[in-house]
């Protein structure tokens, strides 16, 4: 029983602008000792699920600023499940209205973070959600 590295896919689905927030989170996870697979801008849910599968990640972090989260996130979860990766934890960052939170939790999103969230909290939540013994 050895402690193994946590692997996290950080992706930016949708067509909106920049990936500064995603990069900040990616670096914070790296600094917390995790292995981050960074896929860049304009990822479709299909691309994200495919990358999550090939990389055998423990978690997927999505950064969505466009407001399209209620369309994109359920689709990502659906595809992960279809691929047999229902155990992968999904985290969401962006501008998410409070009224969407219950539905997001219901479909299986583990954590949601607004623009002011501390990266320490994100790191702690990811750690807590993943069993570390291989």
């Amino acid at each position, binding site marked *: 029983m050895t402690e*193994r590295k946590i*692997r996290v896919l950080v992706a930016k689905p949708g067509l909106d602008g920049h990936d500064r927030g995603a990069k900040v989170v990616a670096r914070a996870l*790296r600094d917390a000792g995790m292995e981050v*697979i960074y896929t*860049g801008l304009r990822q479709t849910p299909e691309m994200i699920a*495919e990358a999550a599968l*090939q*990389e055998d990640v423990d978690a997927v972090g999505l950064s969505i600023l466009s407001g399209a989260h209620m369309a994109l996130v359920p689709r990502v979860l659906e595809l992960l499940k279809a691929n047999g990766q229902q155990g992968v934890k999904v985290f969401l960052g962006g501008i998410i209205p409070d009224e969407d939170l219950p539905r997001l939790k219901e479909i299986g999103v583990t954590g949601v973070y607004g623009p002011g969230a501390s990266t320490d909290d994100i790191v702690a939540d990811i750690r807590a959600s993943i069993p570390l013994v291989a």
Partner: protein
Amino acid sequence: MNSSLAQAVLAGDRLALARLLSRVENDTAEGRAALDELFPLTGRAHLIGVTGAPGTGKSSLVNQLAVFFRQQGQKVAIIAVDPSSPFTGGAVLGDRVRMKDLQGDAGVFIRSMASRGSLGGLATATAQMAQVFDAAGFEIVIIETVGAGQSEVDIARLAHTTLVVEAPGLGDDIQAIKAGILEIADILVINKADRPGVESTERALKSMLELAHPVQRIFLHHGQMMTLAGEEPTAGLWIPPICKTVAPDGSGLPELVQAIEKHADYLRQSGDWIRRDRARLEAEFDLLLQETLVAQFRAHLTESRLQSAIASIHSRQASPREVLAKLLEEMPR
């Protein structure tokens, strides 16, 4: 006993493949058992190493190479290695960003890998992950590494064909070309050929190639990497060609693919393909032998016995060799 993971991989289950790669990377018992089972199916893939300084365009080139091999109907696996942070052990692996053209193609499998600090361990893990892809039926396995001395050499030992990627403007007379690079390069690539300074980069590479006298170069090449006891160096010479490419638009890619295929033909015709394979397996076996014997030895040696042995060396009562001989005598047979 058959491992269900290995069987699922052979049946084309991509999630099983991804999971087995993790088990192998983490060197788990399950991973080892599956490797044992898959081993008879290895030795078929063409392993291509791509190495060079950060930012020279390796990932962009790998993307284009894979597109070419896909057009020929070959299945392509990519292992993209990036360094782990020496301070935190974490890593940001960003090579997929440049490999967008390969998404949605079931004939391609891209796996990012962090170097995790240990050089020997990286070479072993990479070799074993390549074996998994090989057994799973990927005809081409491309391994991208950031060129940093020893890892270049390790990759060359693993790969059939090693591409060393340079780019103009990395500094006067290519500071990136370090000692030893000519011994491992089967093909030299000057990427970013759309940038100024291509001619001087090419001139510097050519003069270095000429400096290394061909016969001696090849001898060194084999002497370092693939001599088998009592065997003569291969007949015929392979002079590393220089290919100029612009990865984003694909210029020079057909010529590069041709050079890779020519090198594979050369390896097969000269007998080097078989020789390299055997030398690589011999080196891997040697490593395994050392690891296993050391582990066995340590398992039978209590910490207190080890400390008393060290103490007698430290006080100069006995030499290290004498103490070791004594410890070996004490080992159960």
